[in-house]
């Protein structure tokens, strides 16, 4: 419940802050923290989607992700935890971004669940995302909505690049 209240409050603030302003950029970088490979997925079920990205930290100090906001639906940072062959999504209150390292949100691992969407996300839409970090503050950016198939192919590509 606290999460939902926090989200509504931050969304309201975000909307007020955005009035008359240019939309946030497609990429975000601040104080050593950079966001790349940011995608939301189309809604397979009408009220549900997911968001993924890579958060890189070029700084010598670690940072901590405390929350995620979305212009669409309620955003919840989850991890997938598997015990005795059964996988569950668990809420992640804090996620450390290591110094001179990165954290990749990806299917089957850390991901942002977008729930209670007012309307399904479609291929070609964009959503505005805000990532709140302890040191770097809130990074706001736009993420394209892609199909799950495209997402999987893009991740396969980034896997090859990281190898």
């Amino acid at each position, binding site marked *: 419940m606290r999460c939902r209240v926090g989200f509504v409050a931050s969304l309201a603030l975000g909307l007020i802050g955005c009035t008359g302003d240019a939309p946030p950029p497609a990429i975000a970088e601040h104080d050593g923290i950079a966001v790349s490979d940011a995608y939301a997925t189309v809604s*397979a079920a009408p009220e549900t*989607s997911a968001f993924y990205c890579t958060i890189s930290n070029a700084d010598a100090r670690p940072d901590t992700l405390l929350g995620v906001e979305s212009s669409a639906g309620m955003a919840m940072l989850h991890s997938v935890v598997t015990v*005795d*062959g059964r996988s*569950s999504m668990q809420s992640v209150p804090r996620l450390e971004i290591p110094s001179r390292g990165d954290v990749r949100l990806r*299917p*089957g691992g850390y991901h942002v669940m977008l729930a209670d969407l007012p309307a399904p996300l479609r291929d070609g839409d964009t959503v505005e995302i805000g990532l709140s970090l302890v040191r770097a503050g809130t990074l706001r950016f736009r993420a394209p909505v892609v199909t799950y198939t495209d*997402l999987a192919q893009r991740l396969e590509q980034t*896997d090859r690049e990281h190898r």
Partner: protein
Amino acid sequence: MTNTSCIPSWAPRWVTGIRGSRLLLLTSLLLVGVACRAPEGGGPLRGTPLGVLTPKPDILLTTTDGAAFDFPRATAGYVTLLFFGYTHCPDICPVHMANLAAVLHKLPSTVAGRVKVIMVTVDPERDTPERLRAWLDNFDRDFIGLTGSVADITAMQQAVRLPPAVKEGEGDTYLVGHAAYVLAFTTDDQPPVAYPSGTRQSDWAHDLPQLARRMERAR
């Protein structure tokens, strides 16, 4: 997925048999060993064969059209990919389905035409037949959706050696913890092959032709 030891690091403990009896462990290693030594072209399977022969589940569920689905009979002669998931799942379930649909659309019909994809909902309370059908249609209209009573769905998971799904949380927004594997059934003399969350389209494109060839040889 690199697969140097044949038992990948992601293999669940029930696959490696560490939690099971020593006999199961030995059987698993033996079967996995055979699968590794006798590749069917293109290298060993990237999925992990279960350690024991497991027949197709013989439990009557209902299709999204409301028809009774006689699982063994309806899938006879096909590589049968069985997955237990739910439509409120944002991550594991749609990624599995999207990857399968993308690969099946690219493979030649001689392979794709020998594959049936079946998703059984583990959330029959919210997944009405209509909702499950609409969800599957995002990926492929030929994917089969099954539902039934919680008792029958639980029995089917147990029949194929998966831990039954559990409801997590309260109210309308609960989640469901469930096995994240797609099980590939082929011929009766081969154990099903498990594909975890994280299986790539390239892994499916590698394995499905080999699995389809098993069906050809059995004809």
